[in-house]
């Protein structure tokens, strides 16, 4: 029998993104199967299937919570986009930076940072408000955000095709690629942050209290 480590990223994804009860036993089963000769491909397939199946079960079992998670996430974004950003942040940033349309200017990077922070905050809030179902609900909003940002796909395609011939388009291509993927990644990151072990401990204490 070989004792080699299974793909660490796959194990991390399984332990952090599969909804439902604690996932130690599933991870253990997969590791046992991997040690007895199953391939890395098989391991990855099982991990992704486990995450997708649990995600589907979570939405099917709690559709109202899923809608609430989307509403909370959208609400957070709208407060930032139409409340905080134009009234507070925009005047502040304009005092120090010159507005420009170029993707990697200080102005653009500042707004990216602020925007991704808000996305992370929405993931954190969703995780905190849906503690028993936090993984599933954070995934719901991250998926929703990804679907919404699919609108950048034509621009991504256009800039990608142009960037092959002219590197001038590369920053715009990268900007659109970031616009498609990074908001969802930030939401997941915020969701993970909202599910730190200390919050698990306090939740366990709440449930086990007489």
């Amino acid at each position: 029998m070989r004792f080699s480590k299974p793909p660490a990223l796959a194990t991390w994804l399984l332990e952090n993104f599969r909804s439902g009860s604690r996932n130690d036993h599933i991870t253990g089963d997969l590791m046992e199967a991997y040690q007895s000769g199953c391939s890395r491909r098989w391991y990855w397939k099982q991990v992704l299937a486990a995450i997708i199946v649990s995600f589907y079960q979570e939405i099917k079992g709690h559709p109202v919570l899923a809608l609430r998670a989307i509403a909370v996430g959208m609400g957070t974004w709208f407060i930032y986009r139409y409340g905080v950003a134009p009234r507070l942040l925009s005047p502040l940033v304009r005092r120090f930076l010159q507005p420009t349309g170029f993707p990697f200017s200080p102005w653009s990077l500042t707004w990216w940072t602020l925007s991704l922070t808000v996305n992370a905050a929405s993931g954190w809030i969703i995780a905190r408000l849906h503690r028993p179902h936090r993984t599933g609900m954070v995934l719901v909003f991250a998926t929703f955000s990804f679907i919404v940002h699919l609108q950048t796909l034509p621009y991504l395609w256009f800039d990608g095709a142009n960037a092959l011939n002219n590197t001038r388009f590369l920053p715009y291509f990268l900007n659109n690629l970031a616009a498609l993927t990074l908001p969802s990644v930030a939401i997941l990151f915020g969701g993970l942050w909202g599910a730190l072990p200390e919050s698990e401990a306090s939740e366990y204490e709440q449930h086990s209290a007489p």
Partner: protein
Amino acid sequence: MSKRDYLGHLELMVMLVLIRLGEKAYGIPIAHEIETKGGREVSLGSIYATLERLETKGLVSSELGESTPERGGRAKKYFSVTAKGVREVSEMQRVLKQLWPRLRQLEGRRV
């Protein structure tokens, strides 16, 4: 007639495998048994999602077992069918037996 949920396809298969395997049933042997007898691959994620659902319905119970080095120190979770689960499977068998005879489309087919 009272309204009740019948077991789904995979749920019934998992219940039958649990009864067949006895006390030492956990994810890998369950998946292996279903693959061997059913002839198709079933992901461990689906098996565990089904087991968690059956446990919520009170048809299956679980307990944590030993952890081994090849499992990265993670404990096994053993599953067994409860008395309610056995009754549910028996009821399912009775219903299926009643529905099975004289199905013209199936007559002459080798199973």
